[in-house]
């Protein structure tokens, strides 16, 4: 069942074919090519590439291509041996580390840490001093050098499994430590171990080749690819293929092992980034703007995104909306109703994969469906402000709050540092963040959640905002903080006269804050109504939303009303 599916991906197919070839060469290579590889011919010695000898011949006239094929067995077997040592040793050490009492556990973990800080080759060299420069010595050396990697992997995986409920449940049922480890922990960490074993085999192969190449691995008259590469590299002036031939074998088999790991992990189906939608550039024409210019005019907005199968799926189906200067408009709807996508489209912030079409999408005479020109960018930077849902992630954690506040004024209004700093202090005071001068030099993580959101509002006020788009600005905050943020938003509007587009799922919050409410569901506007006349709402969905809001008179013994899902789509989104 799984195998044919595996063969259908290019990686799976390549890995399978490669694996079959490697296995064939390992088993039959010495049988088929053995004679050719050892047959000496003084007349043919040190020849270059020819049809008879694709990789040329060596000092004794032996065919190098045959030798590369024959060397597969030694190279692959030694690789498997060394990988086996790494895995078995590592898993044992890792499991022991998990089972030990905590002081010893920490000691072993520290030791593994230290071993890991040394590159593999150095560890392998160290061990090869002890075990000598033979094939077996090198196998032990490479194998032991890989133990720390698997020990760390095992203990990390085991620790994550050990914390899971079913392992704790087994412990409560009286299963002993050792028994739990082998019955419950080890089987659950096997799949990731298998993935890493394949990847590790690839690395082991290269390391082994390195040791042999240095003359510290397989010794003459035995030979593996590393040794062939070593011998070939000395004759590179005469016959480059003598070195490149074994090199190709090393890389190919290394890639096969690495691919196997990727196929096992099933993460191999690397997703291509979705194709970008090309947007038209805005013209250089700048329309005159007055105080009476509508803040936003939008009609028949449609937004589509690429679905899993690559086809475009429409999420917003023809939404129209207009906002007058200074007006406060709320969009209400459940998750997946398309309200945030609409807001992002208004701001022109949808990603390159989104397909936005509209009859008209104008912010104060700027066409938001086109790529803005320089002057329009400047105006947008100053006149539009965005506040996002999660204040923990919407401020850049690496830059001071002051830098992030000043930026827009400095870039767009060409303000001096001193001026923008003064303005930033001013705006922080406006949103009631005390001790503004000191706060500006702090990083966002030094702010509380509510303070960050107010800093975001202050950031929007650094220009001359005409429209503040607040996309669920209080959803991630608790109720008391929510009030402060709403108050800051209201005061910001009073100070600047900006219009506000307020997006929320909370109809109670929206009706208290906005002049006009737009109710969205599944990408369409179901009702548009003045906030003061919300009681007269006609649409059953709007009425349902209102009914869901409990007040002091709500019967607490009855279950709260529930709105039925419109269709499957809105649940899965």
């Amino acid at each position: 069942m799984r195998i044919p599916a595996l063969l259908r991906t290019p990686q799976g197919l390549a890995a399978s074919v490669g694996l079959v070839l490697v296995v064939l060469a390992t088993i039959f290579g010495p049988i088929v090519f053995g004679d050719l590889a050892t047959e000496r011919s003084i007349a043919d010695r040190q020849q270059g590439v020819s049809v008879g000898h694709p990789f040329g011949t060596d000092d004794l006239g032996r065919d190098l291509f045959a030798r590369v094929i024959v060397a597969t067995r030694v190279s692959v077997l030694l690789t498997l041996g060394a990988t086996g040592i790494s895995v078995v040793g590592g898993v044992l050490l890792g499991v022991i580390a998990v089972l030990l009492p905590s002081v010893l556990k920490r000691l072993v973990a520290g030791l593994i840490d230290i071993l890991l800080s040394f590159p593999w080759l150095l560890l392998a060299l160290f061990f090869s001093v002890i075990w000598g420069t033979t094939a077996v010595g090198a196998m032990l050396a490479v194998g032991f050098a890989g133990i720390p990697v698997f020990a760390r992997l095992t203990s990390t995986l085991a620790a994550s499994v050990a914390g899971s409920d079913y392992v704790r449940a087994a412990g409560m049922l009286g299963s002993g430590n050792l028994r739990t480890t082998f019955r419950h922990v080890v089987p659950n960490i096997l799949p990731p171990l298998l993935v890493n074993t394949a990847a590790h085999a690839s690395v082991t192969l290269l390391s082994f080749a390195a040791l042999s190449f240095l003359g510290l691995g397989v010794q003459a008259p035995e030979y593996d690819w590393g040794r062939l590469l070593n011998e070939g590299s000395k004759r590179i002036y005469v016959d480059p293929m003598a070195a490149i031939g074994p090199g190709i074998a090393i890389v190919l088999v290394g890639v096969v092992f690495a691919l196997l790991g990727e196929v096992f992990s099933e993460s191999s189906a690397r997703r291509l980034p979705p194709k970008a939608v090309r947007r038209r550039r805005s013209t250089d024409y700048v329309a005159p703007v007055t105080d009476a210019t509508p803040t936003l005019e939008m009609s028949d907005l449609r937004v589509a995104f690429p679905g899993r199968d690559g086809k475009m799926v429409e999420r917003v189906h023809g939404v129209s909306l207009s906002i007058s200067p200074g007006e406060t408009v709320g969009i209400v709807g459940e998750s997946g109703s398309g309200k945030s996508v609409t807001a992002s489209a208004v701001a022109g912030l949808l990603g390159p994969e989104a397909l936005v079409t509209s009859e008209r999408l104008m912010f104060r005479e700027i066409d938001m469906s086109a790529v803005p020109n320089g002057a329009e960018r400047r105006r947008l930077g100053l006149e539009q402000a965005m506040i996002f849902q999660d204040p923990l992630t919407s401020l850049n954690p690496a830059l001071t709050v002051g830098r992030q506040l000043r930026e827009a004024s400095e870039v767009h209004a060409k303000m001096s540092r001193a001026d923008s700093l003064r303005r930033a202090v001013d705006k922080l005071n406006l949103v009631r963040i005390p001790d503004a001068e000191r706060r500006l030099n702090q990083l966002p993580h030094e702010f509380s959640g509510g303070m960050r959101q107010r800093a975001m509002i202050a950031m929007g006020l650094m220009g001359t905002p005409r429209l503040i788009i607040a996309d669920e600005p209080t959803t991630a905050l608790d109720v008391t903080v929510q009030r402060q943020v709403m108050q800051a938003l209201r005061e910001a509007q009073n100070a600047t006269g900006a219009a506000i587009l307020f997006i929320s799922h909370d109809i109670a919050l929206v009706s208290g804050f906005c002049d006009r409410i737009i109710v969205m569901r599944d990408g369409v506007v179901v009702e548009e109504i003045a906030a003061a006349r919300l009681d007269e709402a006609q649409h059953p969905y709007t009425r349902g939303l209102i009914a869901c809001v409990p007040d002091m008179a709500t019967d607490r013994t009855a279950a709260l009303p529930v709105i039925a899902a419109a269709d499957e789509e809105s649940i899965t989104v």
Partner: protein
Amino acid sequence: MTIPSTVVTAAAAATPTEPSPVRRGDRLLAIVGSPRLAFLLKRLARALVALALVLVASFFMVQFVPGDPVRAALGPTAPAATVDALRHTLGLDLPLGEQFTRYFGGLLHGDLGVSVSTQRPVGTTLAERLPATLMLSVVAFVVAALGAFPIGVATAVSARGGRRRSLDLGVSSLLGIIIAIPNFLLAVVLIWLFSIVVPLAPSAGWGSPQHAVLPVLALAIGPLAYLARIVHVEMVRVLDAPYITTARSKRLPAHLIYLRHALPNIVTATLTAGGVVLTGLVAGTVLIETVFVIPGIGSTIVSSITTKDYPLIQGVVLMYAVLVLAANLVIDLLLAALDPRSTIAEA
């Protein structure tokens, strides 16, 4: 070849699950006050423990050699008197405790013993050969780091735009293939291409800048591709972050978004990977110096292992270990200096 081995390591290391070290760190943090200082102290302590471990290991390395190391070094045909004489010079006939004190006493005075094959003090040999290795690895690291950032950032930005999909796929496949090629093989191919097919640079020797071109390339290209991939992955992750949307909503010019808003946020992960690359580079000199016949400590370790010159082996192993620990410490210092949020406190 030392690079891919660390992919697994880095992935495993990225998810610290042991709760106890964190708690311990918090206690330390409470004492010293600054998370940076706590981080540095912890790393310094780890380096010291590692150094002690290396010292002990290098001493016991010779003891662990099965059979008689002196006989192995001199070969089966050497007369017994010579073997005994060498054993006496190396101090291997003394009781273990006395050997131990002799070894560490010598180390404290900078005396690493005398090479069996050249009869010269090991310290002198190392001092002569260290500069070439240091030079090679530092230059290669700088080349790798300088090359990786523009490539990683550019591919990430264009991958996000999704406008040049075939180019993106081509570059990422090329990086993947380069990472899969071991550096010694790359070195051989480079010699063939640029010393034989198109004679641009010498294939062996050391001393002039031309001599360094191919070795530095052979050493740097793999780590460059590896780092570029890390930068790419980190950049793609960061470009999807909400704070980048915030920066976009401010209509900042592209260079400010990428350089000021995105780059600082990939520093920690990239530097951590950079540490792995740097130590891998140090070890990679062993292979590169051998291929290009460079008189550094890398080619010394190979020849000394082949001739079983134990005092020299001990010296070079110690030297390499110190180099690796120093490289780790340099990265830790950089992390402490550059990490914007002291996320290092948990690392």
